[in-house]
Every structure is written in structure tokens, then in C-alpha cells.
């Protein structure tokens, strides 16, 4: 079963370089394809996310806010994902969360509270299409962006 190939390298001095280059090229090619695949996965991931989050968005007048993460912070704080610079709105006002394909809203210590469809919520509240969230003077409507 044993085959000694060492004379090959002596006979063809370029063979070792060729074999090394061959290995390097294929590994690099593989790396390149992985990169391309990762870039495609990004778009696919976006679509998966739309599916996961039902494509819900919040519309406030002419503005429209997409929900790009499982936790969306609404408030006056500069770090908030949906930021309103109104005095009536607390720095950390409300938190939208996604679980099991359902969006919920939660009051995280807002002074003026979070009102959904005219009712001030006391605990986590599930959101449906066309629900209206009132935060301070703002009215946010849950709309379905993509189906």
C-alpha cells in the first residue's frame, strides 16, 4: 500500500510549488465563496427577519419606523431606536419586543404612560395590525409593511 513519491519532487522541481499554489488557491477560493455566501445570507437574513416580525412597522404621520430588532426602545434618549425629542416623552419610555412572532409593547417607567387603543397599559401588551400607540402627543399606528 505504501508508495514513496519523494522522487517526484526531485524529478520535477516545480511540482512542489505547483501543489502548494494549488492548495492555496483552492482554500482561497473557498474563502471567497464563503464571503459571497455570507453577503447573500445578509439579504436572506433580512427577509427572514421580515417574516419573523410579520413586517410590522410603526407609522407616525408622514414618518414610518421599521422594527429591525427584537427589542426596540422608544424614548427621548439619544440612544433610543425610535426617538422623539418631546418633553412629554420620558427618556426611556416604551420597549417593543418580539417573541414567538408576536410584537409586544411594554411601559418601562414612562411618566405619562403608554396608551394602546386609548387604554393605558399596566403590563406587556400584544400589538396587532392597526393598533394605535399613544406616547405623549404622538400617535403611532401599527401597520403591516410587507406581506
Amino acid at each position, binding site marked *: *500500500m505504501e508508495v514513496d513519491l*519523494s522522487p517526484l519532487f526531485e524529478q520535477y522541481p516545480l511540482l512542489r*510549488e505547483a501543489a502548494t499554489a494549488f492548495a*492555496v488557491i483552492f*482554500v*482561497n477560493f473557498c474563502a471567497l465563496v464563503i*464571503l459571497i*455566501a455570507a453577503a447573500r445570507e445578509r439579504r436572506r437574513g433580512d427577509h427572514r427577519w421580515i417574516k419573523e416580525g410579520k413586517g410590522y412597522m410603526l407609522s407616525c404621520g408622514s414618518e414610518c419606523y421599521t422594527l429591525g430588532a427584537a*427589542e426596540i426602545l422608544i424614548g427621548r434618549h439619544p440612544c433610543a431606536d425610535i426617538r422623539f425629542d418631546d418633553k412629554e416623552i420620558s427618556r426611556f419610555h416604551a420597549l417593543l419586543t418580539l417573541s*414567538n412572532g408576536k410584537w409586544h409593547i411594554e411601559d418601562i417607567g414612562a411618566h405619562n404612560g403608554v396608551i394602546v387603543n386609548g387604554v393605558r397599559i399596566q403590563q406587556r401588551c400584544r400589538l396587532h395590525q392597526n393598533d394605535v400607540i399613544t406616547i405623549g402627543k404622538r400617535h403611532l399606528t401599527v401597520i403591516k409593511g410587507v406581506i
Partner: protein
Amino acid sequence: MAKSSVKPISHPFLLLLVLIAHTAMMVLVVLSFGVDAEVIKLAAAVLSADLVGSVILQIIHREACTVDTVLLLITGMSTIYQSCFGGLEFDVKHFAFCMASFVMCQISYAVTRNPYRAEKLKPLWYTLFFILVFCILFLTGSRGIWIDLGFITIQPSEFVKPVFVLICASSIHTQLKKSEIAGFHFVPDNLMLLLCTVVIAGLQWWCRDLGSLPTFIAAAGCAMLLRFCYLREKVSLRLIVFLAACGVGVAIFAWKLAPGYVQERLHSDIWADMSSTGYQQVKALTAIAEGGWFGKGVGNGTLIHVAAARTDIVFSTICEEWGLFTGMMTVVLVLFLPGAILTVPPRSYYHSGLALGVAAVFIVQMALNIFGSCNLIPFTGVTIPFISQGGSSMLASGILAGFLKAAQAPVLTDRQTQKGGK
């Protein structure tokens, strides 16, 4: 929801490419060593691992294939490297640990893919952390870092890394829970992180395992940075100056307190001391110089006879036999793992914390290893994830890779079922 219009590159196709890349490397190995039992064993192991891996991935899930594919590619390459250093001998142990780390990756993915659940398990992570700390304190030899079980030695400080990363990550929910003691407002989670950092830093100092210290500091630093970003109005100049001053103060304090051997290491000139303290680095640098761009040839290296050739100075060992180009390429491939989250970003705070923590651990560890062995920074004994030999480090790296996969393919379900919804 209509089906996605973007066709992904299919998983089997990617894994076929991995298979071809490994085959190309094996061709070089076969040409170098001829055909004998060891070559066949190595080829069979690496190639069948690719096939089995692809089948498993096909069955379990088909999302976020980047991490899995890169992991299979790297572990196969690593097995080939480790088996060929200084002559061909199939490194069964290393191969087994590679596979184990792949399995660990899937397990840790399963555990952490749900950010809500993973964060709810934080008390468990704290418990694990302190159990490991106690293991280091009491089960390792005097100031050692290994637990010797007779048939195998475990390095608990490696397993602290993934647990620490789990502790580092935090969600906005946790950050909003404030407690108050004596008029002083604080976030319990942040306080715990600080405590854990101090404990682990002190422990590493005590153990003289200063190689791992920067890794933990970096992970904790990244975590702190993320938390500040969540909650600060804006990062004021005063705060930055204050933090910088603190950092400098700690550095000076550490420098003054550093044991003699550390200070020695920080200013030693390796070329003046080629036979004792600088021995490994001198050999490593010379080996890279001898290897050139395309190496001396597989199995022709001599660096393997130097201590830690398969772990601490493995970069040089690869460069000597396979060439600097291949060595750099391998390092860049490992970087693909933390880089993966740049393509599919995490969708929850906890997962983004995990991803940054893993990136900090991986990159700092690689920097310490590679730049240390090449004399750009002081030389410390740390490993390159997935490339260096060493069971504990391999398993821990597998767990960390699982976190990255979790960040890319999250499952956001169980909070609702647990709470029963509204």
C-alpha cells in the same frame, strides 16, 4: 409571506468547496509524504468529517451557514497542519478535539440561540463562573492553571472565557432594573460584571497566567462600552478623560506591582539572550524567515522541536512549513468567524453583546499569540483559537463560535410561552 427571492448559496455546495479545499491540501501532503497508512488515516478523517458535518448541518438547520462552514474549513486545516509538523503522524487527539469543538458549537448554539432564555439563565452563568474560579483556586496545583486528572489535563481558565462572555452580554431590560442602596443608584448586573472582572483579573494575576488577563479585560471593556452606549445621554469628554485617567492609573499600578518576571519580559531583548528567555521567539522568527512566502515544504520544519511549537508559537510553525502566505491566510480565515456578524447582524441586545465579547476574546487572543511570538509585544502563552493544539482551548473556542452562530440565527420564542402572553 412569499418565499425569499434571494437564493442563498446552498449549504451542500459550500461544504463541497470545503471538501475540495481540504482535498487540495491533502494532495500536497500526499505528494510530500507518499502514500502510507498515516496519510490515508488523515485523509479519511478530514474528508469524512466534512461529509458528516455537512449531513448533520443539513438535518439540523440550514440558516447562518457562515460560522459552520468556516469552522469546518478551519478545523480540517488545523488537523492537517498539526498532523504534518516535522513529519507525518495523524494527530488523533487534535482531530477528536476539533470534532468535539464543532459539537460544542452546536450545543452552545442550542443553549444561547434564544437571547431571552440565555439571559434568564444568567444566575446559572454566575454560578458556573464562580465554580470555575474555585476550581482554579483549589484544584489546580499551586498557582497553576491546569487540573491534572491523570489521563487528561483540563485548563479551567479556558472555560471561564465563554462563561465570562455570557456574563458580559446584557439586554436593555436588565440595564433598566436599577437598585438603590444608601441613595446610590446602580444596576445590579453592571455591579456583578465589575465584580466578576475584578475576581478573574485578580485570579489571573495570582496564577501568573498573564496571557489570559488582556483577553478578559478586553471582553469586559467591550461589554462596559456597550452598556455605556445604552444608557448614557452621550459620552461626555469629561467621562472619557476620567476613564482614560483610570486606565492609565491602573496600568501604572499594575506595572509597579508586576512581578519581576513580567517586568523582565517587558524589556528583554531576545537577540541578546538567544539561549534562554528569547529562545522560543528567536527560533520562531528564524523559522518564518527560513520559510519565506511558500514555506520549506510540508513536514520539513525544524521548529517543531522547540517547546510550545504546536501551541504558543504555532503561527511560526505553520509559516515555516507552509509559508508566510498560508499562515496569514489561516489567520484571516479565523477572523471570518467574528467578522460573520458584520453580514448578518444580531437582532437583540443580548446577542450583540455576546458577539462583541467573542470578537474581543478571539482577536485579543490571536494578537497576543501572533504578535507575541513575533516579538512585537511581550511573549505570553496563549493559543490561537482552533489552530493551536489544546483540548480546553479548543472546546472553549467551539462554545464561543456557537454564540456567534446564535447571534446570526436567533430564535425568539420562549418568553411568550413561559409568561403565557397577555
